[in-house]
């Protein structure tokens, strides 16, 4: 019994259909409590007024946007090294979720920027590197769509993900070098444990972050199942439908 056994698509389908109900339930509960608590149950910030409430969407989405790419990177590596179809399809399934998270972070950030900085958009390093991340997602998804043969598509997108990650990090430094920003720094540093956000804001934020993470997982697992079903149907069709 190793974990790789779930790399078999059919086994994966069976297992995932068992955990999915719980996962979805947990995700929905966490997201709704986090957002409702944040929206109704927290006071306004002295400086930012009611706009702090945007944080419960903005930060979790931004977090998951990065994590989704990271997950795709790992899945791509697994595909390249061990050629387990599930990991390739999981990477494919995660990309649209990642791009939506990126979009949410961008949109909520832009809406937040208008009252706070007096502008929708500024070429701040953090914002800029998010925009670049958005472009990487776009290219990655477009490449998947453009190649017919699924294995070739998995191979090529995996390499793109790898090379893209290197360049994404490079861009991050380049952008920082290029412009000093407005955006505030990380206030929930995971490594040090210290934080600058007051508790009233922090707990609902934490719940919302967990919720977004669970939602991401649920979506990716569900979408991976969809991809597997489509591949399976195509494989069966190909066998029965072949002739001269």
């Amino acid at each position, binding site marked *: 019994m190793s974990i790789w056994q779930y790399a078999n698509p059919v086994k994966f389908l069976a297992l995932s259909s068992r955990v999915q109900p719980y996962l979805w339930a947990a995700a929905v509960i966490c997201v709704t409590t986090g957002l409702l608590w944040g929206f109704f149950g927290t006071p306004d910030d002295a400086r930012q007024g009611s706009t702090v409430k945007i944080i419960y969407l903005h930060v979790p989405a931004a977090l998951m946007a990065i994590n989704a790419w990271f997950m795709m990177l790992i899945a791509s590596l697994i595909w390249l090294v061990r050629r387990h179809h599930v990991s390739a399809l999981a990477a494919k399934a995660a990309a649209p979720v990642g791009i939506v998270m990126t979009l949410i972070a961008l949109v909520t950030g*832009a809406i937040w920027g208008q009252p706070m900085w007096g*502008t*929708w*958009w*500024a*070429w701040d390093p953090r914002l*800029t590197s998010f*925009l*670049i991340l958005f*472009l990487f997602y*776009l*290219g990655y998804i*477009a490449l998947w*769509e*453009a*190649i*017919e043969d699924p294995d070739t598509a998995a191979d090529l997108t995996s390499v793109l993900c790898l090379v893209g990650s290197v360049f994404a990090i490079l861009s991050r430094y380049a952008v920082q070098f*290029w*412009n000093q920003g407005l955006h505030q720094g990380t206030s929930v540093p995971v490594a040090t444990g210290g934080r600058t956000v007051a508790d009233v804001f922090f707990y609902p934020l934490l719940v919302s972050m967990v919720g977004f993470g669970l939602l991401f997982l649920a979506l990716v697992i569900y979408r991976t199942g969809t991809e597997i079903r489509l591949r399976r149907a195509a494989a069966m069709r190909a066998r029965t439908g072949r002739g001269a």
Partner: protein
Amino acid sequence: MIALLIRDLRLAFRAGGGFGLGLAFFLIVTVLVPFSVGPQADLLSSIAPGVLWLGALLACLLSLDRLLALDYEDGTLDLLVTAPLPLEAALSIKALAHWLTTGLPLVIAAPVLGVLLNLPANGFGWVVVSLALGTPALSVIGTFGAALTVGIKRGGLLMSLLVLPLYVPTLIFGAEAARRGAAGLDGTTPLLMLAGITFGTIALMPFASAAVLRMGLR
């Protein structure tokens, strides 16, 4: 006729068909501008209408090379020329399909990209209207350029070279209208000129394109 339109649209939406890529290119050009000229908001907002127009023009231009070249390579064009369909009509349809898959999405995306470039608030309407009026001309003129270079392997860049000067009047009036609008002035005059160019080219260019295509296939 409609069969041709449907086929072109369907091909555009299929994998590798290029729908959305013009849009993506537009997005990317706009994003690269601040990297190259620097991030100062006032500088960006003063060049924003121009950059949007230039980006839309380049995006149109780059998607031209799939307008006819693919059909040429696989022999479809030979067969279309001998089919019972006036070539002028076929080319108009192809230009229309090009505009629907390239120009129209650009028009819709322009305001969003305007935000990235700090476009002044009263510029949005003008940019959208001028692009909506101007991009059809870009597609029709582009079809002419594509027909002109159809026999040439990878004529893409050569085509850009031939088409760009033809795009200049459209660009001048379009960008002028958008700039005036963004600066809070009245851009009606250039807008009328732009409309004139668009309707003129739609009415006349297909004949030139068809003539040129017949010569090129020989």
